[in-house]
Protein backbone atom coordinates (compact mmCIF):
# COMPACT_ATOMS: atom_id res chain seq x y z
CA UNK A 1 0.00 0.00 0.00
CA UNK A 2 3.07 2.24 -0.30
CA UNK A 3 2.07 5.30 -2.32
CA UNK A 4 4.76 6.32 -4.85
CA UNK A 5 5.36 9.95 -5.74
CA UNK A 6 3.00 11.16 -8.45
CA UNK A 7 -0.14 9.51 -7.06
CA UNK A 8 -1.04 12.33 -4.67
CA UNK A 9 -1.05 16.07 -5.28
CA UNK A 10 0.78 18.77 -3.32
CA UNK A 11 -2.08 19.72 -0.96
CA UNK A 12 -2.60 16.08 0.05
CA UNK A 13 1.15 15.53 0.44
CA UNK A 14 1.53 18.65 2.60
CA UNK A 15 -1.56 17.91 4.73
CA UNK A 16 -0.55 14.31 5.42
CA UNK A 17 3.05 15.45 5.92
CA UNK A 18 1.94 17.85 8.65
CA UNK A 19 -0.25 15.13 10.23
CA UNK A 20 2.69 12.69 10.22
CA UNK A 21 5.17 15.16 11.74
CA UNK A 22 2.66 16.20 14.41
CA UNK A 23 1.85 12.58 15.28
CA UNK A 24 5.54 11.68 15.54
CA UNK A 25 6.12 14.69 17.82
CA UNK A 26 3.23 13.65 20.07
CA UNK A 27 4.44 10.03 20.00
CA UNK A 28 7.90 11.09 21.18
CA UNK A 29 6.35 13.18 23.95
CA UNK A 30 3.95 10.40 24.97
CA UNK A 31 6.65 7.72 25.18
CA UNK A 32 9.57 9.83 26.39
CA UNK A 33 11.07 8.53 29.64
CA UNK A 34 8.54 5.70 29.68
CA UNK A 35 10.50 3.11 27.73
CA UNK A 36 11.79 0.40 30.03
CA UNK A 37 14.45 -2.27 29.91
CA UNK A 38 12.38 -4.87 28.00
CA UNK A 39 10.70 -2.34 25.74
CA UNK A 40 13.99 -1.21 24.18
CA UNK A 41 14.82 -4.53 22.48
CA UNK A 42 11.10 -5.03 21.75
CA UNK A 43 11.07 -1.83 19.66
CA UNK A 44 14.15 -3.04 17.80
CA UNK A 45 12.76 -6.53 17.18
CA UNK A 46 9.35 -5.21 16.08
CA UNK A 47 10.86 -2.72 13.62
CA UNK A 48 13.13 -5.46 12.21
CA UNK A 49 10.37 -8.10 12.06
CA UNK A 50 7.84 -5.75 10.44
CA UNK A 51 10.38 -4.71 7.78
CA UNK A 52 11.30 -8.32 6.98
CA UNK A 53 7.70 -9.57 7.03
CA UNK A 54 6.64 -6.74 4.70
CA UNK A 55 9.03 -8.13 2.06
CA UNK A 56 7.11 -11.41 1.93
CA UNK A 57 4.24 -10.64 -0.40
CA UNK A 58 1.63 -13.40 -0.40
CA UNK A 59 -0.58 -14.00 -3.44
CA UNK A 60 -4.28 -13.18 -3.13
CA UNK A 61 -7.11 -13.26 -5.67
CA UNK A 62 -6.64 -12.33 -9.33
CA UNK A 63 -2.90 -11.86 -9.85
CA UNK A 64 -2.58 -9.55 -6.88
CA UNK A 65 -0.39 -9.86 -3.81
CA UNK A 66 -0.60 -8.42 -0.35
CA UNK A 67 1.87 -8.02 2.41
CA UNK A 68 1.85 -7.68 6.17
CA UNK A 69 1.68 -4.10 7.46
CA UNK A 70 2.39 -4.72 11.14
CA UNK A 71 0.89 -1.62 12.75
CA UNK A 72 -1.64 -3.74 14.64
CA UNK A 73 1.03 -6.04 16.03
CA UNK A 74 3.14 -3.06 17.12
CA UNK A 75 0.17 -1.25 18.67
CA UNK A 76 -1.04 -4.33 20.56
CA UNK A 77 2.43 -5.09 21.93
CA UNK A 78 3.70 -1.57 22.71
CA UNK A 79 0.71 0.78 22.45
CA UNK A 80 -0.36 3.06 19.60
CA UNK A 81 2.21 5.83 20.12
CA UNK A 82 5.16 3.43 20.06
CA UNK A 83 3.52 1.86 16.99
CA UNK A 84 3.57 5.26 15.25
CA UNK A 85 7.32 5.50 15.94
CA UNK A 86 8.01 1.93 14.79
CA UNK A 87 5.95 2.22 11.61
CA UNK A 88 7.49 5.62 10.82
CA UNK A 89 10.97 4.11 11.20
CA UNK A 90 10.08 1.27 8.83
CA UNK A 91 8.50 3.59 6.25
CA UNK A 92 11.36 6.11 6.35
CA UNK A 93 13.96 3.36 5.80
CA UNK A 94 11.87 1.79 3.02
CA UNK A 95 11.58 5.18 1.33
CA UNK A 96 15.18 6.37 1.74
CA UNK A 97 17.12 3.12 1.27
CA UNK A 98 14.81 0.91 -0.80
CA UNK A 99 12.86 3.49 -2.88
CA UNK A 100 9.59 1.89 -1.74
CA UNK A 101 7.02 4.64 -1.21
CA UNK A 102 7.64 8.16 -2.50
CA UNK A 103 9.59 10.81 -0.61
CA UNK A 104 6.80 13.38 -1.03
CA UNK A 105 4.25 10.66 -0.22
CA UNK A 106 6.04 9.66 2.99
CA UNK A 107 3.61 11.66 5.14
CA UNK A 108 0.64 9.95 3.51
CA UNK A 109 2.19 6.50 3.97
CA UNK A 110 2.93 7.22 7.64
CA UNK A 111 -0.60 8.54 8.09
CA UNK A 112 -2.20 5.46 6.52
CA UNK A 113 -0.02 2.56 7.64
CA UNK A 114 1.25 4.07 10.90
CA UNK A 115 -1.33 6.38 12.47
CA UNK A 116 -4.65 5.13 11.06
CA UNK A 117 -3.70 1.44 11.13
CA UNK A 118 -2.07 1.65 14.56
CA UNK A 119 -4.82 3.52 16.40
CA UNK A 120 -7.70 1.72 14.67
CA UNK A 121 -6.36 -1.73 15.54
CA UNK A 122 -5.40 -0.72 19.07
CA UNK A 123 -8.85 0.51 20.09
CA UNK A 124 -10.67 -2.39 18.42
CA UNK A 125 -8.30 -4.81 20.18
CA UNK A 126 -8.77 -3.09 23.54
CA UNK A 127 -12.57 -3.03 23.13
CA UNK A 128 -12.94 -6.69 22.20
CA UNK A 129 -10.38 -7.78 24.79
CA UNK A 130 -12.37 -5.98 27.53
CA UNK A 131 -15.69 -7.28 26.18
CA UNK A 132 -14.41 -10.86 26.34
CA UNK A 133 -13.09 -10.35 29.86
CA UNK A 134 -9.38 -10.30 28.98
CA UNK A 135 -9.31 -14.00 28.15
CA UNK A 136 -6.62 -15.46 25.87
CA UNK A 137 -9.20 -16.10 23.18
CA UNK A 138 -10.59 -12.58 23.60
CA UNK A 139 -7.17 -11.03 23.10
CA UNK A 140 -6.54 -13.07 19.95
CA UNK A 141 -10.01 -12.39 18.50
CA UNK A 142 -9.56 -8.69 19.23
CA UNK A 143 -6.12 -8.72 17.63
CA UNK A 144 -7.37 -10.47 14.50
CA UNK A 145 -10.36 -8.18 14.01
CA UNK A 146 -8.28 -5.12 14.86
CA UNK A 147 -5.59 -6.13 12.35
CA UNK A 148 -8.19 -6.70 9.61
CA UNK A 149 -9.79 -3.31 10.17
CA UNK A 150 -6.37 -1.63 10.31
CA UNK A 151 -5.60 -2.71 6.75
CA UNK A 152 -9.09 -2.02 5.42
CA UNK A 153 -9.33 1.43 7.01
CA UNK A 154 -5.80 2.34 5.88
CA UNK A 155 -6.75 1.34 2.32
CA UNK A 156 -9.91 3.46 2.56
CA UNK A 157 -7.94 6.53 3.64
CA UNK A 158 -5.31 5.79 0.96
CA UNK A 159 -8.07 5.62 -1.68
CA UNK A 160 -9.53 8.90 -0.39
CA UNK A 161 -6.11 10.56 -0.75
CA UNK A 162 -5.93 9.35 -4.36
CA UNK A 163 -9.47 10.57 -5.05
CA UNK A 164 -8.90 14.01 -3.46
CA UNK A 165 -5.72 14.28 -5.56
CA UNK A 166 -7.77 13.66 -8.71
CA UNK A 167 -5.75 10.53 -9.52
CA UNK A 168 -8.80 8.28 -9.79
CA UNK A 169 -12.54 8.94 -9.32
CA UNK A 170 -14.02 8.24 -5.87
CA UNK A 171 -16.56 5.70 -7.17
CA UNK A 172 -13.76 3.73 -8.81
CA UNK A 173 -10.85 3.86 -6.39
CA UNK A 174 -12.75 3.44 -3.10
CA UNK A 175 -14.44 0.10 -3.90
CA UNK A 176 -11.36 -1.18 -5.75
CA UNK A 177 -8.94 -0.42 -2.90
CA UNK A 178 -11.22 -1.44 -0.05
CA UNK A 179 -12.36 -4.59 -1.88
CA UNK A 180 -8.88 -6.03 -2.43
CA UNK A 181 -7.71 -5.00 1.03
CA UNK A 182 -10.64 -6.81 2.64
CA UNK A 183 -8.91 -9.93 1.30
CA UNK A 184 -5.35 -8.81 2.13
CA UNK A 185 -6.55 -7.91 5.64
CA UNK A 186 -7.27 -11.58 6.31
CA UNK A 187 -3.55 -12.26 5.87
CA UNK A 188 -2.76 -9.40 8.25
CA UNK A 189 -5.14 -10.86 10.84
CA UNK A 190 -3.69 -14.37 10.52
CA UNK A 191 -0.07 -13.20 10.86
CA UNK A 192 -0.88 -10.91 13.80
CA UNK A 193 -2.74 -13.69 15.64
CA UNK A 194 0.02 -16.22 14.88
CA UNK A 195 2.75 -13.96 16.27
CA UNK A 196 0.73 -13.12 19.38
CA UNK A 197 -0.06 -16.82 19.95
CA UNK A 198 3.64 -17.62 19.74
CA UNK A 199 4.45 -14.93 22.31
CA UNK A 200 1.58 -16.08 24.54
CA UNK A 201 2.87 -19.65 24.47
CA UNK A 202 6.52 -18.79 25.09
CA UNK A 203 6.88 -15.42 26.85
CA UNK A 204 3.44 -14.21 27.98
CA UNK A 205 5.12 -11.52 30.10
CA UNK A 206 6.06 -9.72 26.86
CA UNK A 207 2.37 -9.02 26.22
CA UNK A 208 2.32 -6.48 29.02
CA UNK A 209 4.75 -3.89 27.69
CA UNK A 210 2.36 -1.24 26.32
CA UNK A 211 3.79 2.26 26.66
CA UNK A 212 1.39 5.20 27.13
Amino acid sequence: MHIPDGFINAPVAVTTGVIAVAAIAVAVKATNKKVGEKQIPMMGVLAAFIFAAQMLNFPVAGGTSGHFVGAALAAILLGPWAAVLIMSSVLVVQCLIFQDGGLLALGANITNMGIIAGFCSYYIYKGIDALLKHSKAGALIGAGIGAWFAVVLASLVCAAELAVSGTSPWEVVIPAMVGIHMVIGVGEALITVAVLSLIMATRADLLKLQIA
Partner: protein
Amino acid sequence: MKTKWWIAGLSIALLLAIISPIASAFPDGLEKVAEDHGFIDIAATSPFSVVPDYTFPGVESEAIATILAGILGTLVLFGLGFGLASMLKSKNEA
Protein backbone atom coordinates in the same frame (compact mmCIF):
# COMPACT_ATOMS: atom_id res chain seq x y z
CA MET B 1 22.36 -20.90 28.47
CA LYS B 2 18.88 -19.66 27.70
CA THR B 3 18.63 -17.64 24.52
CA LYS B 4 17.48 -14.11 25.14
CA TRP B 5 13.97 -13.64 23.72
CA TRP B 6 14.95 -10.68 21.60
CA ILE B 7 17.78 -12.60 19.95
CA ALA B 8 15.18 -15.21 19.01
CA GLY B 9 12.92 -12.45 17.66
CA LEU B 10 15.69 -10.87 15.61
CA SER B 11 16.67 -14.31 14.28
CA ILE B 12 13.10 -14.88 13.08
CA ALA B 13 13.20 -11.50 11.31
CA LEU B 14 16.51 -12.38 9.64
CA LEU B 15 15.12 -15.76 8.64
CA LEU B 16 12.20 -13.99 6.93
CA ALA B 17 14.70 -11.77 5.09
CA ILE B 18 16.60 -14.86 3.94
CA ILE B 19 13.48 -16.53 2.54
CA SER B 20 12.24 -13.24 0.98
CA PRO B 21 13.04 -14.36 -2.61
CA ILE B 22 10.01 -16.68 -2.38
CA ALA B 23 7.68 -13.64 -2.04
CA SER B 24 4.92 -13.32 -4.62
CA ALA B 25 5.94 -11.11 -7.54
CA PHE B 26 2.33 -10.10 -8.25
CA PRO B 27 1.62 -6.36 -7.87
CA ASP B 28 0.32 -5.44 -4.42
CA GLY B 29 -3.19 -4.15 -3.78
CA LEU B 30 -2.47 -0.50 -4.61
CA GLU B 31 -0.29 -1.32 -7.66
CA LYS B 32 -2.96 -3.66 -9.02
CA VAL B 33 -5.69 -1.03 -8.60
CA ALA B 34 -3.41 1.53 -10.29
CA GLU B 35 -2.79 -0.88 -13.21
CA ASP B 36 -6.45 -1.82 -13.60
CA HIS B 37 -7.67 1.76 -13.48
CA GLY B 38 -4.99 3.35 -15.63
CA PHE B 39 -2.97 5.48 -13.25
CA ILE B 40 0.12 3.30 -12.68
CA ASP B 41 2.05 5.37 -15.27
CA ILE B 42 1.86 8.60 -13.27
CA ALA B 43 4.04 7.03 -10.57
CA ALA B 44 7.25 9.04 -10.49
CA THR B 45 10.56 7.23 -10.21
CA SER B 46 12.66 8.24 -7.24
CA PRO B 47 15.22 11.00 -7.86
CA PHE B 48 17.73 8.90 -5.92
CA SER B 49 18.55 5.22 -5.84
CA VAL B 50 20.22 3.32 -3.00
CA VAL B 51 18.91 -0.27 -2.94
CA PRO B 52 15.97 0.00 -5.37
CA ASP B 53 13.25 -2.69 -5.36
CA TYR B 54 14.90 -4.54 -2.48
CA THR B 55 17.67 -5.67 -4.82
CA PHE B 56 21.23 -5.04 -3.68
CA PRO B 57 23.03 -3.34 -6.59
CA GLY B 58 25.97 -5.05 -8.30
CA VAL B 59 24.98 -8.57 -7.28
CA GLU B 60 24.42 -10.90 -10.22
CA SER B 61 22.03 -13.36 -8.58
CA GLU B 62 18.65 -11.70 -8.04
CA ALA B 63 17.87 -14.01 -5.13
CA ILE B 64 21.10 -13.18 -3.33
CA ALA B 65 20.62 -9.46 -4.07
CA THR B 66 17.16 -9.65 -2.47
CA ILE B 67 18.46 -11.55 0.55
CA LEU B 68 21.26 -9.01 1.07
CA ALA B 69 18.78 -6.14 0.82
CA GLY B 70 16.50 -7.89 3.30
CA ILE B 71 19.28 -8.51 5.81
CA LEU B 72 20.50 -4.91 5.46
CA GLY B 73 17.04 -3.46 6.08
CA THR B 74 16.31 -5.83 8.96
CA LEU B 75 19.54 -4.91 10.75
CA VAL B 76 19.13 -1.17 10.05
CA LEU B 77 15.62 -1.28 11.51
CA PHE B 78 16.66 -3.28 14.54
CA GLY B 79 19.33 -0.65 15.22
CA LEU B 80 16.96 2.24 14.56
CA GLY B 81 14.19 0.82 16.77
CA PHE B 82 16.62 -0.06 19.52
CA GLY B 83 18.38 3.32 19.30
CA LEU B 84 15.15 5.30 19.24
CA ALA B 85 13.82 3.39 22.24
CA SER B 86 17.10 3.96 24.11
CA MET B 87 16.68 7.70 23.61
CA LEU B 88 13.20 7.47 25.15
CA LYS B 89 14.40 5.35 28.06
CA SER B 90 12.92 5.95 31.48
CA LYS B 91 15.22 7.80 33.86
CA ASN B 92 14.99 5.30 36.70
CA GLU B 93 16.49 2.54 34.56
CA ALA B 94 20.17 3.09 34.14
